[in-house]
């Protein structure tokens, strides 16, 4: 996978991040990762492995201390409309309605003077896509957590970024809503087909959503392995999490993560029985 190829949209070479407080803490040590055009790539790893830091570096909001990142072969500098970011917690503007939150990026100068009708039409289409019809005029405080993240996804898609970056967007939701939104995201991805880099610590979520899963190791964070998820698409209607192929992948990823989890400082091995129960 060395060297830029046509199918690669974002390429990271030796991306590192060190914080210097009292002593230097290396959060990321040389991450090499190619993100292919229109693929769904999940980044998983134990907490504190720097996966979110890497995502923020790709978004351009955090600067790397070493290495280089390119988008379509050109080096990236700072944040831009090319890369849309969806945050873990709600980042909607509470003073704007659902409609205005989604239209926010379309009304900027960077959107190059789109007419009122054009904006209304694209926002309406996005509202249909994420299933928020009837909630256009609600403000974020009147929305449930799931609806907030639907709005955030629509707002992010509005500016038509080349790459979607998602930082554990369903982490704060209850299990049931998370399940619904995972399927919704699958459906949206399988409809829109946009390159997505998705950070999570949930192995099942990663398998369900992605084409490939990149596993990170902790402190300092590096890419430890990349696992292909060869489950057929479209999945949003049909994929079962009891599917043998799914379970095999889950076991494999658990195995990859476990060494690191047991080595991390806040591991409680006795409680982590999920893996052993999954064994036949």
């Amino acid at each position: 996978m060395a060297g830029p190829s046509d199918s690669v949209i974002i390429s990271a070479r030796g991306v590192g991040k060190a914080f210097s407080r009292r002593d230097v803490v290396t959060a990321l040590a040389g991450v090499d990762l190619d993100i292919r055009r229109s693929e769904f790539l999940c980044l998983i790893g134990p907490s504190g492995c720097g996966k979110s830091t890497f995502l923020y570096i790709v978004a351009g909001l955090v600067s790397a201390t070493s290495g280089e990142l390119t988008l379509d072969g050109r080096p990236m500098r700072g944040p831009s409309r090319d890369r849309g970011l969806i945050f873990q917690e709600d980042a909607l503007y509470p003073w704007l309605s659902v409609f205005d939150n989604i239209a926010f990026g379309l009304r900027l100068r960077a959107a190059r003077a789109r007419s009122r009708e054009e904006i209304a039409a694209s926002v309406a289409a996005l509202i249909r896509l994420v299933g928020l019809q009837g909630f256009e005029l609600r403000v974020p405080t009147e929305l449930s957590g799931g609806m907030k993240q639907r709005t955030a996804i629509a707002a992010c898609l509005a500016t038509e970024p080349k790459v979607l970056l998602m930082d554990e967007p369903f982490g704060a939701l209850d299990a049931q809503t998370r399940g619904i939104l995972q399927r919704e995201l699958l459906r949206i991805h399988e409809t829109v087909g946009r390159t997505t880099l998705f950070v999570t610590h949930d192995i099942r979520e990663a398998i369900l959503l992605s084409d490939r899963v990149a596993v990170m190791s902790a402190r300092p964070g590096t890419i430890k392995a990349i696992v292909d998820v060869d489950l057929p698409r479209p999945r949003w209607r049909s994929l079962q999490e009891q599917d043998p192929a799914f379970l095999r992948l889950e076991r494999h990823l658990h195995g990859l993560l476990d060494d690191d989890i047991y080595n991390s400082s806040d591991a409680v091995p006795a409680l982590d029985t999920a893996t052993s129960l999954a064994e036949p």
Partner: protein
Amino acid sequence: MKAGPKSAPAIRSVPPEADDVVSRFLRLCHRFRRVYSIVLLLLAWEVFAFAINDPLFLPSFIAVLKMAWSMLQSGQLIVDASASLQRSLIGFAFAMAVGVPLGILMGWFRQWDDFWGSIVSLSNPIPKIGLVPLFVLWFGIGELSKVAVIAAGGFFPILINVYNGVRGVNPIWIWRARTVGISETEILFKVILPAALPAMFTGARLGMALAWVILIAAEMVAARSGLGFRILYGQQMFETEVVFAGLLTISLLGFLFDRVIQALSQKTCSWYFRLGHQAQAET
């Protein structure tokens, strides 16, 4: 202000649709729940005034009202109140005109904070009433010295609140704006200003209240009109009713202005008050 008392437990037990005499009476009582303390205070005042029987020390509230009414009829109170109003509003407008932009610039640009921060920290603790003699020296005993003192007093709470409001903007809101390609001026107008608006209103409320306090003091030191002057005049003439009538007018006007600013902030920052209620409901 409006939402809290709705849950007063005493009246909650009365179903709103009940139409018997008792529950109607209870509802009526509930409606005036915020007035009882004032009525009680005035009653105590009357009793005290009657017991002491020394109008020079404490005139009865009725006598104060009568004096206020006659001052209103003679036009005296109007002249004084409008003189004070004019000064406080002009001074307040100056304080806003300087405090809001400077607060935004200091909150947003590190260099502005570095340059102005120490001057602000050093001049804020100076009691602004202490500036009255200086301003009289500089600007004479005319309107300018009073307006300047009020502006100086209102300026600091406005500045500090706007500054804190800008500094306290959720960084995620700024990050999100940056990932959709927002320009620096657009960040200011589309993210920072709306997000900091509630803090600006807090600054305006505090600034307005302080403007009144300082105004009255300034008018006592050097003025020929205004409510502060009238109060001092009443004291010198041994007309305690006039003193109280002046204080009453100040209290009412100050209350009125606070309410106007509060209503404006609830209208323009309704999202902020909803956030507060949500937090309350969740705890």
